[in-house]
């Protein structure tokens, strides 16, 4: 560093206005930074990045350490590798039917995503490409749904699904009791995302498809939807994550048993309840890690879609 040589012993270099001769490395750094503020920004940037990495990832690390430390009393931030036991991940599956909970979650999320994408495609096409009276009010009506807390839908839906509204119609403890509320509550976001994407397809392409021989509906599914594949994927990924992560109806629309289609919420809560009688923290942590794996993979694979979807969908609204 050339600055080191400027520690002039006897005014060899006096073109730099240095107030003092004796400085430690930190003061030197400060001195240089004042001359070149970019260095400060750069340093701040690295500190901030490191800070965010640590804070966001630490809880996951904590889960992992907790899971593989057999004796929770000896939990340490840097555990000794020799004492770790990875068998706990298998315990999760032995103790409860965790696989079934996971499967339930995935099935519920996939079915909801399919329903939402189909219905939102039709609606997104209408809002994005057609001019008709009532367009604006209907969009506002859909938007209004997202302002209500799930709790505001809960009591009537619970009564409906337990067969107290329509006799013989009992969906409680079936996938329908969750898929229906998920679909209607998560559909608005997909509608807004798809409205944006479908609206951007040039009119000429739809006309061309119809002249070439598709019906109006055919033009939607053969041309507009394939052309909007990134948007459809975005809406799909966001819906999947939203359903997989949902808590309210996932917990309240079944009795928490895996054979009654309870998703991972049920699984983890039953591990937690079991924890009140015997110490099962390691198993709870291991279960949590396993439950995160599907969405973690999705985030790594589809992060661009998530980013674009969140921003386009949310900012459009």
């Amino acid at each position, binding site marked *: 560093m050339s600055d080191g040589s400027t520690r002039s012993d006897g005014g060899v270099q006096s073109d730099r206005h240095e107030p003092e001769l004796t400085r430690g490395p930190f003061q030197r750094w400060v001195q240089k930074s004042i001359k070149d503020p970019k260095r400060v920004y750069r340093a701040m940037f690295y500190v901030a990045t490191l800070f965010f990495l640590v804070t966001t990832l630490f809880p996951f690390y904590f889960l992992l350490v907790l899971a593989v430390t057999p004796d929770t009393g000896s939990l340490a931030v840097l555990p000794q590798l020799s004492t770790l036991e990875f068998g706990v991940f298998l315990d999760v599956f032995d103790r409860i039917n965790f696989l079934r909970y996971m499967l339930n979650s995935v099935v519920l999320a996939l079915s909801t995503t399919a329903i939402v994408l189909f219905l939102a495609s039709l609606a997104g096409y209408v809002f994005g490409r057609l001019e008709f009276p009532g367009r604006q009010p209907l969009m506002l009506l859909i938007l209004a749904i997202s302002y209500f807390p799930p709790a*505001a839908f809960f009591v009537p839906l619970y009564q409906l699904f337990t067969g107290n509204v329509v006799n013989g119609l009992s969906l409680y403890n079936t996938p329908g009791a969750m898929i229906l509320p998920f679909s209607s509550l998560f559909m608005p976001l997909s509608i807004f995302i798809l409205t944006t994407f479908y609206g951007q397809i040039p009119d000429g392409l739809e006309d061309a498809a119809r002249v070439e021989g598709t019906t109006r509906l055919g033009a939607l599914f053969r041309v507009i939807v394939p052309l909007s594949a990134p948007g459809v994927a975005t809406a799909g990924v966001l819906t999947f994550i939203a359903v997989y992560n949902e808590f309210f109806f996932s917990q309240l629309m079944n009795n928490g048993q895996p054979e009654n289609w309870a998703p991972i919420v049920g699984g983890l809560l039953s591990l937690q309840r079991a924890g009140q009688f015997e110490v099962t923290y390691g198993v709870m942590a291991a279960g949590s890690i396993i439950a995160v794996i599907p969405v973690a993979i999705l985030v790594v694979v589809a992060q661009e879609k998530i980013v674009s979807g969140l921003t386009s969908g949310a900012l459009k609204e």
Partner: protein
Amino acid sequence: MSTEHRTGDAPESGDRGLYASVVSWMENLSETQYAYLLLTPAFLLLGAIAFWPLLSTFRLSMFADSFGQASVGNFIGLGNYVAIITGERSALLPSPFLPEALTTRAFFNSALAVTVIFTVISVFFETIIGFVQALVLDQEFRGRRWVRVAIILPWAIPIVVQGMIFYLMFQPNIGFLVGTSDNPAFLNQLGLLSTTPLANAQDATMIAIVADVWKTTAFMALLILAGMQSIDRGLYDVAKVAGASAWQRFKYVTFPIILPTVMVAMLFRTIQAMRVYGLIETVSGCTTVPSLSCLVVTTFNNRMLGSSATIAFITAAIIAVAVSVYIVGYVRGGQ
């Protein structure tokens, strides 16, 4: 060019009578009719699973709680609303709606107060931290993709896992952040945390806030980032030519342009935070931290259907108030 087949006689795939007539009926609808036809499935679903429950909840909120065989009691109009908002019903509710005294303890026991505390503090920190995260992600650097994954990851995990993480972190038995009275941990020594934080309303609320900030700051960051990246980079060149420092460029270019985006992001987060339920249920249970949504469920479990419906609608109304505050601010800011 082959001219053997005329298009009219092209091998159409058979005369499927019903299918053909449905298709021709659909093709001949006017644009408006077609629009409404395609909206029908979505609105049937929304009608049955969203609009009907809302109306039904509203209707339910006008009936008194029943403690007998019937599911609801007499029609009392807005009686439930009056009773709950004035605090008259508080004694009967699992947790009071309004604080019953002006003490910290009473505030953290009140559904309304605790929800507002939770919302204001968590949205405040999410905005600040999200802003800084967005600034970080706005830079070009190696490994940006992975930093972004790390930041998004908490947002993408199930609420129950989020709750589980913070439940475990603050378990006294695990002895990591929480010590015992004999062997206090760092946070206990600072007096920030009791030794049984998950059973203490104030501590549990703070833990829920930390958990919420941890999980949803990414959402804020991504929205703000999108706002930053939509700024015309040419504006920065103009500012540089005009002699603005990096801080001035941020203050006079970046900040005013993304302010509306930040407002929208805050609005979204506020709506979500006001309905917090799952996190609290997993971390501490609804009895310790009685958020409004928690109160809906606990009153329902106590078979107080009228009160439950009323609280649900009051929650929606409070959200509506918050939304209008933002909209007014947004419109003012836009002028």
